[in-house]
Protein backbone atom coordinates (compact mmCIF):
# COMPACT_ATOMS: atom_id res chain seq x y z
CA UNK A 1 0.00 0.00 0.00
CA UNK A 2 2.66 2.50 1.05
CA UNK A 3 4.65 2.21 -2.18
CA UNK A 4 1.54 2.87 -4.28
CA UNK A 5 0.59 5.97 -2.35
CA UNK A 6 4.12 7.25 -1.71
CA UNK A 7 6.33 5.99 -4.55
CA UNK A 8 9.51 7.88 -3.62
CA UNK A 9 9.54 6.34 -0.15
CA UNK A 10 11.45 7.76 2.77
CA UNK A 11 11.49 7.98 6.54
CA UNK A 12 7.84 8.63 7.25
CA UNK A 13 4.87 6.88 8.78
CA UNK A 14 1.88 6.16 6.56
CA UNK A 15 -1.42 5.90 8.46
CA UNK A 16 -4.89 6.37 6.94
CA UNK A 17 -4.59 6.07 3.12
CA UNK A 18 -7.61 8.31 2.57
CA UNK A 19 -6.73 10.77 5.29
CA UNK A 20 -6.67 14.42 4.25
CA UNK A 21 -3.84 15.60 6.52
CA UNK A 22 -0.07 15.26 6.22
CA UNK A 23 2.10 16.43 9.10
CA UNK A 24 5.68 17.65 8.73
CA UNK A 25 7.55 17.54 12.02
CA UNK A 26 10.31 20.05 12.58
CA UNK A 27 12.18 20.00 15.90
CA UNK A 28 9.47 18.16 17.80
CA UNK A 29 8.78 14.81 19.42
CA UNK A 30 5.14 14.30 18.52
CA UNK A 31 3.05 11.46 17.19
CA UNK A 32 -0.01 12.73 15.31
CA UNK A 33 -3.30 10.82 15.54
CA UNK A 34 -3.58 7.78 13.29
CA UNK A 35 -6.35 9.52 11.34
CA UNK A 36 -3.74 11.51 9.40
CA UNK A 37 -2.56 10.19 6.04
CA UNK A 38 1.17 10.50 6.61
CA UNK A 39 3.68 12.14 8.91
CA UNK A 40 7.43 12.45 9.14
CA UNK A 41 10.30 14.76 9.90
CA UNK A 42 11.43 17.62 7.69
CA UNK A 43 15.13 18.33 8.00
CA UNK A 44 16.60 19.93 4.91
CA UNK A 45 15.41 22.83 2.79
CA UNK A 46 16.26 21.13 -0.50
CA UNK A 47 15.80 17.34 -0.76
CA UNK A 48 13.71 17.20 2.41
CA UNK A 49 11.16 19.58 0.92
CA UNK A 50 11.20 17.74 -2.39
CA UNK A 51 10.32 14.46 -0.69
CA UNK A 52 7.41 16.04 1.14
CA UNK A 53 6.05 17.45 -2.08
CA UNK A 54 6.46 14.18 -4.00
CA UNK A 55 4.95 12.15 -1.17
CA UNK A 56 1.90 14.36 -0.76
CA UNK A 57 0.89 15.05 -4.36
CA UNK A 58 1.08 11.31 -5.02
CA UNK A 59 -1.93 10.87 -2.73
CA UNK A 60 -4.79 13.10 -3.93
CA UNK A 61 -6.68 12.51 -0.69
CA UNK A 62 -4.10 14.64 1.13
CA UNK A 63 -5.31 18.25 1.16
CA UNK A 64 -3.66 19.75 4.24
CA UNK A 65 -0.02 19.92 5.26
CA UNK A 66 0.48 20.86 8.90
CA UNK A 67 3.94 22.14 9.84
CA UNK A 68 4.70 22.06 13.55
CA UNK A 69 7.61 22.33 15.95
CA UNK A 70 10.53 24.70 15.98
CA UNK A 71 12.09 25.47 12.63
CA UNK A 72 15.48 23.93 11.87
CA UNK A 73 18.28 26.35 12.70
CA UNK A 74 20.25 27.43 9.64
CA UNK A 75 18.20 25.32 7.23
CA UNK A 76 14.90 27.07 8.07
CA UNK A 77 13.25 24.14 6.28
CA UNK A 78 9.73 24.84 7.55
CA UNK A 79 9.77 28.49 6.55
CA UNK A 80 11.33 27.57 3.20
CA UNK A 81 8.51 25.10 2.54
CA UNK A 82 5.95 27.81 3.28
CA UNK A 83 7.83 30.15 0.93
CA UNK A 84 7.73 27.50 -1.79
CA UNK A 85 4.00 27.03 -1.42
CA UNK A 86 3.46 30.78 -1.56
CA UNK A 87 6.04 31.88 -4.14
CA UNK A 88 7.30 28.88 -6.13
CA UNK A 89 10.85 28.80 -7.55
CA UNK A 90 12.86 31.13 -9.75
CA UNK A 91 14.69 30.34 -13.02
CA UNK A 92 17.65 29.11 -10.94
CA UNK A 93 15.42 26.58 -9.11
CA UNK A 94 15.77 28.56 -5.89
CA UNK A 95 12.68 28.89 -3.70
CA UNK A 96 11.66 32.53 -3.94
CA UNK A 97 12.14 34.42 -0.66
CA UNK A 98 13.11 31.25 1.24
CA UNK A 99 15.17 31.96 4.37
CA UNK A 100 17.10 28.67 4.23
CA UNK A 101 20.76 28.49 3.25
CA UNK A 102 20.40 26.32 0.13
CA UNK A 103 16.70 26.11 -0.79
CA UNK A 104 17.03 24.61 -4.26
CA UNK A 105 14.49 22.30 -5.91
CA UNK A 106 16.30 20.07 -8.41
CA UNK A 107 14.33 16.81 -8.53
CA UNK A 108 10.85 18.09 -9.30
CA UNK A 109 9.37 19.71 -12.36
CA UNK A 110 7.62 23.05 -12.06
CA UNK A 111 4.36 21.24 -12.83
CA UNK A 112 4.78 19.20 -9.64
CA UNK A 113 5.27 22.36 -7.62
CA UNK A 114 2.16 23.91 -9.16
CA UNK A 115 0.26 20.76 -8.29
CA UNK A 116 1.52 21.01 -4.69
CA UNK A 117 0.40 24.63 -4.49
CA UNK A 118 -3.05 23.74 -5.81
CA UNK A 119 -3.66 20.49 -3.92
CA UNK A 120 -2.32 21.36 -0.48
CA UNK A 121 -3.32 23.94 2.07
CA UNK A 122 -0.29 24.57 4.24
CA UNK A 123 -1.10 25.16 7.90
CA UNK A 124 1.71 27.10 9.54
CA UNK A 125 2.16 25.93 13.12
CA UNK A 126 5.89 26.63 13.20
CA UNK A 127 6.86 27.30 16.81
CA UNK A 128 3.92 25.29 18.15
CA UNK A 129 4.93 22.24 20.20
CA UNK A 130 1.87 21.58 22.34
CA UNK A 131 0.26 18.29 21.40
CA UNK A 132 -3.28 19.38 22.32
CA UNK A 133 -3.13 22.44 20.08
CA UNK A 134 -1.69 20.56 17.12
CA UNK A 135 -4.22 17.73 17.57
CA UNK A 136 -7.02 20.29 17.58
CA UNK A 137 -5.86 21.85 14.30
CA UNK A 138 -5.58 18.43 12.68
CA UNK A 139 -9.07 17.51 13.88
CA UNK A 140 -10.42 20.75 12.43
CA UNK A 141 -8.85 19.97 9.04
CA UNK A 142 -10.33 16.47 9.07
CA UNK A 143 -13.78 17.84 9.93
CA UNK A 144 -13.74 19.87 6.71
CA UNK A 145 -13.78 16.60 4.67
CA UNK A 146 -12.33 18.16 1.51
CA UNK A 147 -12.86 16.36 -1.81
CA UNK A 148 -10.16 14.21 -3.37
CA UNK A 149 -7.90 16.19 -5.73
CA UNK A 150 -8.19 14.22 -8.98
CA UNK A 151 -5.61 11.63 -9.98
CA UNK A 152 -2.33 10.95 -8.19
CA UNK A 153 0.67 12.96 -9.44
CA UNK A 154 3.75 10.76 -9.50
CA UNK A 155 6.82 12.96 -9.52
CA UNK A 156 9.35 10.22 -8.82
CA UNK A 157 8.90 6.48 -8.70
CA UNK A 158 11.60 4.04 -7.66
CA UNK A 159 11.38 1.24 -10.19
CA UNK A 160 12.68 -2.15 -9.02
CA UNK A 161 15.44 -3.35 -11.31
CA UNK A 162 16.01 -6.98 -12.20
CA UNK A 163 19.34 -8.21 -10.87
CA UNK A 164 21.39 -11.10 -12.21
CA UNK A 165 22.85 -13.37 -9.60
CA UNK A 166 26.39 -14.30 -10.61
CA UNK A 167 27.60 -15.43 -7.23
CA UNK A 168 28.34 -19.02 -8.10
CA UNK A 169 31.36 -20.52 -9.81
CA UNK A 170 29.63 -22.76 -12.29
CA UNK A 171 31.30 -22.88 -15.67
CA UNK A 172 29.26 -21.08 -18.30
CA UNK A 173 31.46 -22.81 -20.84
CA UNK A 174 33.08 -26.18 -20.35
CA UNK A 175 36.57 -24.67 -20.39
CA UNK A 176 35.93 -21.20 -18.94
CA UNK A 177 35.26 -20.39 -15.29
CA UNK A 178 33.52 -17.10 -14.56
CA UNK A 179 33.83 -15.33 -11.21
CA UNK A 180 31.03 -13.48 -9.41
CA UNK A 181 31.77 -10.25 -11.25
CA UNK A 182 31.38 -11.99 -14.57
CA UNK A 183 35.12 -11.95 -15.30
CA UNK A 184 36.98 -14.95 -16.68
CA UNK A 185 38.74 -16.61 -13.78
CA UNK A 186 40.19 -19.64 -15.49
CA UNK A 187 40.56 -20.78 -19.10
CA UNK A 188 41.07 -24.30 -20.30
CA UNK A 189 41.14 -27.51 -18.31
Amino acid at each position, binding site marked *: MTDDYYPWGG*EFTACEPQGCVAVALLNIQYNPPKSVAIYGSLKTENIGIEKIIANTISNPWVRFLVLCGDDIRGHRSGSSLIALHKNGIDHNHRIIHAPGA*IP*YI*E*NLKEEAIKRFQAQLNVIDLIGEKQKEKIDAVIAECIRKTPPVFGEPYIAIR*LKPQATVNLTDNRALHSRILIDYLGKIKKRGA
Partner: protein
Amino acid sequence: MVDREIPLIKAKKTIEKDVILDPQGFFIIEVDNKSIRVEYYSNVYKNKQIVSGVLQKAFTGIKADALSDTIAVHVPSLRPEHYLYLGRELQKAQLAFEQQKKYIQGGC
Protein backbone atom coordinates in the same frame (compact mmCIF):
# COMPACT_ATOMS: atom_id res chain seq x y z
CA MET B 1 70.02 -6.46 12.08
CA VAL B 2 66.72 -5.59 10.32
CA ASP B 3 65.89 -7.00 6.91
CA ARG B 4 63.00 -4.62 6.20
CA GLU B 5 61.44 -1.63 7.85
CA ILE B 6 57.77 -1.06 7.25
CA PRO B 7 56.11 2.27 7.98
CA LEU B 8 53.78 2.17 10.98
CA ILE B 9 51.34 5.03 10.54
CA LYS B 10 49.28 6.33 13.40
CA ALA B 11 45.64 6.88 12.50
CA LYS B 12 44.35 10.41 12.50
CA LYS B 13 40.81 11.51 11.75
CA THR B 14 40.49 14.18 9.08
CA ILE B 15 38.90 17.23 10.63
CA GLU B 16 35.60 18.25 9.11
CA LYS B 17 36.83 21.43 7.44
CA ASP B 18 39.51 19.44 5.59
CA VAL B 19 37.12 16.80 4.23
CA ILE B 20 37.03 16.93 0.44
CA LEU B 21 33.50 16.55 -0.88
CA ASP B 22 33.23 13.92 -3.57
CA PRO B 23 32.70 15.46 -7.01
CA GLN B 24 30.85 12.26 -7.96
CA GLY B 25 28.01 12.99 -5.55
CA PHE B 26 26.64 12.01 -2.18
CA PHE B 27 24.38 9.47 -0.47
CA ILE B 28 21.39 9.67 1.80
CA ILE B 29 20.87 6.63 4.03
CA GLU B 30 17.55 5.97 5.70
CA VAL B 31 16.29 3.09 7.82
CA ASP B 32 12.67 2.07 8.25
CA ASN B 33 11.11 -1.06 9.66
CA LYS B 34 11.37 -2.91 6.35
CA SER B 35 14.81 -2.09 5.00
CA ILE B 36 17.81 0.19 4.70
CA ARG B 37 17.43 2.60 1.78
CA VAL B 38 20.33 4.38 0.15
CA GLU B 39 19.83 7.16 -2.39
CA TYR B 40 22.66 8.29 -4.61
CA TYR B 41 22.64 11.89 -5.83
CA SER B 42 24.90 13.68 -8.26
CA ASN B 43 26.00 17.10 -7.07
CA VAL B 44 24.23 20.28 -8.08
CA TYR B 45 26.51 23.32 -7.97
CA LYS B 46 25.52 26.96 -7.76
CA ASN B 47 28.32 29.51 -7.60
CA LYS B 48 30.82 26.65 -7.28
CA GLN B 49 29.13 25.34 -4.14
CA ILE B 50 27.20 22.10 -3.77
CA VAL B 51 23.65 23.13 -2.93
CA SER B 52 21.69 19.96 -3.63
CA GLY B 53 21.68 16.79 -5.71
CA VAL B 54 19.82 15.04 -8.50
CA LEU B 55 18.62 11.57 -7.57
CA GLN B 56 20.37 9.04 -9.80
CA LYS B 57 19.92 5.64 -8.18
CA ALA B 58 18.38 4.09 -5.10
CA PHE B 59 19.34 0.91 -3.32
CA THR B 60 17.50 -1.18 -0.80
CA GLY B 61 18.61 -4.05 1.39
CA ILE B 62 18.98 -5.21 4.95
CA LYS B 63 22.70 -6.01 5.09
CA ALA B 64 25.61 -3.60 4.98
CA ASP B 65 27.81 -5.99 3.00
CA ALA B 66 25.22 -6.54 0.26
CA LEU B 67 24.52 -2.83 -0.01
CA SER B 68 28.23 -1.98 -0.07
CA ASP B 69 28.97 -4.51 -2.80
CA THR B 70 26.00 -3.40 -4.89
CA ILE B 71 26.79 0.29 -4.56
CA ALA B 72 30.42 -0.35 -5.53
CA VAL B 73 29.22 -2.02 -8.74
CA HIS B 74 26.60 0.58 -9.62
CA VAL B 75 28.41 3.73 -8.49
CA PRO B 76 32.03 3.43 -9.60
CA SER B 77 34.71 6.13 -9.32
CA LEU B 78 33.94 7.52 -5.89
CA ARG B 79 36.80 8.79 -3.78
CA PRO B 80 38.31 5.96 -1.67
CA GLU B 81 37.43 7.67 1.62
CA HIS B 82 33.84 7.98 0.40
CA TYR B 83 33.55 4.19 -0.03
CA LEU B 84 35.05 3.72 3.42
CA TYR B 85 32.62 6.23 4.90
CA LEU B 86 29.73 4.40 3.23
CA GLY B 87 30.88 1.08 4.67
CA ARG B 88 30.97 2.55 8.18
CA GLU B 89 27.59 4.20 7.86
CA LEU B 90 25.94 1.13 6.36
CA GLN B 91 27.21 -0.97 9.23
CA LYS B 92 25.67 1.53 11.66
CA ALA B 93 22.46 1.47 9.64
CA GLN B 94 22.34 -2.34 9.73
CA LEU B 95 22.80 -2.28 13.51
CA ALA B 96 19.98 0.24 13.89
CA PHE B 97 17.77 -1.81 11.57
CA GLU B 98 18.40 -5.07 13.42
CA GLN B 99 17.94 -3.49 16.84
CA GLN B 100 14.98 -1.39 15.65
CA LYS B 101 16.66 1.80 16.80
CA LYS B 102 16.68 5.20 15.17
CA TYR B 103 19.46 5.73 12.66
CA ILE B 104 20.86 9.19 12.04
CA GLN B 105 23.34 9.47 9.21
CA GLY B 106 26.66 10.79 10.38
CA GLY B 107 29.09 13.11 8.64
CA CYS B 108 32.38 12.11 7.04
